[in-house]
């Protein structure tokens, strides 16, 4: 059992660590602007790492499907994209809550908010597109094509465009800014919580997805005898 589910136990331990140390760890007080809201780093930023990982797995399975059609690759591709979209939405929500305290409004049309919203909307359209077709084989094939297209659209929307515009987002001072945060700025004590939290949340995403995949596979078996 340990051999098969060690990573689930690891995810649990890491997230317990994140959720306790995330609130307890000593944070540097620079000039009184960020204050305690910096703790959002342990919850908001890992969502984007998780989303990217899940989308990468999803697009890999989409390519596998196009090369060798089969319901397994299709289910994997959809479910990874689904969890990835949920992570992206959570990233937007946690970011908006943080922005409400830091910038004074949930939504202030910051380039980084816009880019991330567009990226998530593109993936929502993926599910609408799949929903609009009845034939399973066609749904999987067209869905895979769109999935690859959506993945490539992630690069301009969350990696390139937000770098080009001025933003209030941490780490983003003008065009030389990083899309998210500047890793070099982290205090060592925070780094000790941040990276475990990234791994923990990503593992949780994979775990949720494997459960969904098992559910869908069983459903398929029941429906097709």
């Amino acid at each position, binding site marked *: 059992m340990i051999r098969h589910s060690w990573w689930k136990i690891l995810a649990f331990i890491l997230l317990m660590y994140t959720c306790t140390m995330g609130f307890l760890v000593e944070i540097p007080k620079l000039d009184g602007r960020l204050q305690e809201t910096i703790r959002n780093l342990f919850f908001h930023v890992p969502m984007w790492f998780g989303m990217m990982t899940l989308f990468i797995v999803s697009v890999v399975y989409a390519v596998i499907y196009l090369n060798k059609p089969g319901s397994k690759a299709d289910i994997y591709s959809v479910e990874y994209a689904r969890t990835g979209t949920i992570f992206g939405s959570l990233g937007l929500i946690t970011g908006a809550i943080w922005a409400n305290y830091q910038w004074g409004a949930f939504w202030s049309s910051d380039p980084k908010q816009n880019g991330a919203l567009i990226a998530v909307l593109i993936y929502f359209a993926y599910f609408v*597109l799949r929903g*609009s077709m009845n034939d399973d084989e066609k749904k999987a094939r067209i869905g895979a094509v*769109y999935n690859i297209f959506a993945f490539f659209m992630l690069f301009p929307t969350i990696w390139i*465009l937000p770098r*080009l515009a001025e933003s209030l987002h941490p780490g983003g001072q003008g065009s030389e800014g990083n899309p998210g945060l500047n890793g070099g700025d982290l205090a060592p004590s925070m780094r000790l919580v941040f990276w475990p939290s990234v791994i923990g949340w990503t593992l949780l995403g994979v775990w949720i997805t494997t459960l969904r995949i098992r559910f869908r596979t069983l459903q398929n078996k029941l429906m097709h005898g």
Partner: protein
Amino acid sequence: MLEIRQQYSLYGVILYVASTIYIVYASMHQPENQVWNGLFWIVQLFVCVNAVAKAFLQESRGRMLYFYSIAGAKDFVISKLIFNLLLMLVMSLLSLGVFIILLGNPFEFFWKFVGICCLGGISLSLVFTFLAAIAAKAQQQAALMAIMGFPIIIPQLMLLMKISEIAFSAVVQEGLWQMIFLLVGLDIMVIALAVILFPFLWKD
């Protein structure tokens, strides 16, 4: 191609361009530069959805089968891309002309804007050709075009609006070439994806 066989659809698009711009004129008369710019690109977007979406949506099944028998998937999608690109180029320049006649000519650098307008028309037509190819396979095609198209087109439109500011006055735009390269890069990416992925959409 479709537009020569069904000339009324081509005239329909031209009429669409003219009437949309007239409505804009009737409600705004001669707006400020920034508004002019924004309105122009929004009108371009809707013209493109109308003109280019037809490329796949209105072809009948039988005719698609005929194309399938005489040409390969790659040749077919490339010819569609080129045709729509030219169509949208004509439409962009046409609407630019109508815009100037009705809403006034706010430019200091007219030819710069003509260039940007061509670039914009090309970018829009490429993206929507590919999306139309996907949407044609599904039901409720028109609604899907909007759902899939608008999030994807927002980054391009924002880039275009930013770039076109250089045509209105002698401002120094930071990272101008970067943005133009990005736009051209996006176009190349869309072409590459369309050529690689279309064969999978094609077989039915």
